[in-house]
């Protein structure tokens, strides 16, 4: 009985690992070539941009909040970053724009939540609608396309590789490690969990809750900025109306599958990291098994429910 208990504990506490390994096995059975190097690296390159967003989302959700503006912010910044690149011919300035722009947009969310005392759901819902509208207006229906002069060098940022390891894969791993260190090893990380766990008690322990929330949204914005930069580099042409659509939902899904509690206080970055890969594996397996792509969402939905069910079991 003791052994049985430990096993069921391990399974519920590491549900994201369990589902990850199970999916890997299923994928390999469906198509043995799944385990090829090119296919495995593909999981990372296709998951990287959503991955950056998911890292930001992890912080937001761990503090018991939510951010729906992800996709619209990515579209806004990536569209404008193409303009910056075209007019300055400087990749560095383009990156700088995405970083500063992301932080500013994130802080706007944060200030509305903390000073305006509006629920994060409402603030970011409004931001989602507003930023999408702004970029649509600026793009006037047409794409933001990178000039020929900058095309190759800019595209190489996302499409390049180092000794056969795709750049995007490296970026994703690095940002995951950094975010994980922030959450586990810094005061800021502890404060985030504290705010998500019990805001009152956190405040009475001397934590400046508003400041922490602002920093969280700023970090999330920064992550969206990087995602926007990489998206622009990857596609070299940004459609204002469609770029980044559904990113917030994918990011929330990755965080939820990864075992972060929606009410905040609990969650691990490694879980989110695996969550991103799990979402990609599902898509890949379905393609390999010739399942109509329309059913992708159905399977994803079922996986999310199973993941969260495993969490609620753990809580009891």
């Amino acid at each position, binding site marked *: 009985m003791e052994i049985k208990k430990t096993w069921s504990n391990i399974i519920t506490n590491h549900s994201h690992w369990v589902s990850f390994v199970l999916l890997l096995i299923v994928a390999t059975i469906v198509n043995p070539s799944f385990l090829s190097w090119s296919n495995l690296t593909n999981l990372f390159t296709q998951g990287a941009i959503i991955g950056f967003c998911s890292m930001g989302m992890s912080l937001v959700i761990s503090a018991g909040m939510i951010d729906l503006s992800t996709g619209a912010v990515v579209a806004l910044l990536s569209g404008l970053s193409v303009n910056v690149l075209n007019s300055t011919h400087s990749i560095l300035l383009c990156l700088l724009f995405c970083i500063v722009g992301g932080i500013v947009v994130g802080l706007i969310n944060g200030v509305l939540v903390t000073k305006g005392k509006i629920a994060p759901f409402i603030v970011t819902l409004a931001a989602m609608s507003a930023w999408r509208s702004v970029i649509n207006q600026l793009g006037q229906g047409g794409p933001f396309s990178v000039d020929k002069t900058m095309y190759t060098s800019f595209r190489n940022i996302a499409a390049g590789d180092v000794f056969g390891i795709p750049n995007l894969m490296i970026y994703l791993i690095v940002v995951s490690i950094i975010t994980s260190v922030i959450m586990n090893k810094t005061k800021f990380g502890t*404060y985030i*969990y*504290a705010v998500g766990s*019990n805001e009152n008690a*956190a405040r009475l322990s001397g934590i400046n809750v508003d400041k922490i929330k602002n920093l969280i949204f700023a970090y999330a914005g920064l992550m969206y900025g990087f995602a926007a930069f990489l998206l622009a580099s990857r596609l070299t042409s940004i459609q204002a109306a469609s770029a980044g659509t559904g990113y917030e939902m994918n990011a929330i899904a990755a965080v939820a599958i990864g075992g972060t509690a929606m009410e905040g206080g609990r969650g691990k970055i490694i879980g989110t990291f695996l969550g991103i890969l799990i979402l990609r594996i599902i898509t890949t397996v379905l393609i390999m098994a010739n399942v109509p792509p329309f059913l992708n969402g159905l399977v994803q939905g079922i996986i999310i429910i199973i993941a969260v069910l495993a969490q609620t079991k753990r809580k009891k």
Partner: protein
Amino acid sequence: MFLELKNIKKNFDAVQALDGVDLKVGQGEIHGLLGENGAGKTTLMNILAGSFPPKSGDIIIDGKIIEKMTPKKAMDMKIRFIHQELNLCNDLKVYQNMFLGEELYTKVHFIDDKKEITRAQKVLDSMNSHIVATDKVESLVTAEKQLVEIAKSLLFNSELIIMDEPTSALNNCEIEELFEIMRDLQKSGVSFIYISHKMPEIFGICNKYTVLRDGKFIESGNIKDIDEHIATKLLIGHSLSALDEKFVKESHQSDEVFLSVKGITGDGFNDVTFDLHKGEVLIVTGLQGSGCSELSMSLFGAGNITEGSISVKGKDIKNNSIKVAMESGIGLIPKNRKERGILPDLSIKDNMSLAYYTVKHHKLFVDEKEEDERFFRQQIKMNIKVASQENVITSLSGGNQQKVIFGKWFELDSDVMIMDNPTQGIDVGAKFSIYEIIGNLAKSGKALLVFTNEYPEIHRIADNIIVLYKGRIKGRLNRSEMSEISIMEYSTGTRGEK
């Protein structure tokens, strides 16, 4: 109704919560169910009310064994469980809450508000309350909410009413009113199971008693055959009397003023002035609504202060905020540990390190080794019982959780400790270790400001007492002048400064 619970057993995983408990309640009986926290009282009542099934044992009502009790079945049998925590929807009106799930309908199956309001108001009036059935629950004070809960159970002609600590939010007058109502109902044949820690209440209202300890049935009988001392002994298993008259408290008070409060006014309190000395335990007490909790929060920088001044060790505190208060050496053990004290998802050692981080730790990264050291230091000091400091704090008992929160401030070495009901919701044994900790703190030269209403507690720890009434200081007593009666007279405004 004649109720019999026979040999009830229940376990939660490895913990044996109930181990063969018997309980008999006759018609028109008020039956006191006694036991420390964790003795299994609430678990037993949950089984009776059908919240979850027992592992074994029988529920027998009027001679019939009830198979598979459910909440619905219990209600149909006219059993009502008034839980310790309020189960009301704040956004609904009083009568809507009272009829929730059992609405009255008109012929076309709309809700019959008119009928509901009339019937709800009748019950409320019969209880001599001033609650209006169409008030929003949100607008009521806690005591009134408690009365609504009770009114709800009276609405459906219940035959057995279970009350789990119903008086925790009531003042003495309200308690007496509640008892009046209970006695009236008793005469008409209604039975009660009454759970309380407060001996005067048990002896004031009950006629039978059953004692549980550690999930086991200990004793049952007539209240008139025992007294409070015997009951307490049964409860804890060994003699531990807080009201030991021979008890002598050492005083460690010195002349050095640590906290000086001059004429402060804020939300809920008015023109409050006092000095708190090094080594002193100063009690602030007062009934619900006297401004005690507002004052404690404001002194910690978490509430408004519109007038007056506060200084710590001679230094004026300006622009009081939580951070400023903490940096000047004030610590707060808040009341209501669940809502304000603990961070339920965080580990024990994180909970203990938090205050230190916000004030003294200026590095970006946390230091796991330091966290462990901090924890072990306090563990030894206060004898905290834990399996591992990495576990979440909710894995601990209430008393040990409170010790962790104490430890959080010890690590900050705060000179002035404000404690708001520091023994709330922890059992008798743990209370005494908290008193010991408070004594040691005073001895080591800290200044303590303790907000509490429990007289045995005041008797144990107080050097001096301030009594608040309607936000103003009504009485100041020292240890030799205090008695339960004098404090109550000041608290109720019958005596004291104008």
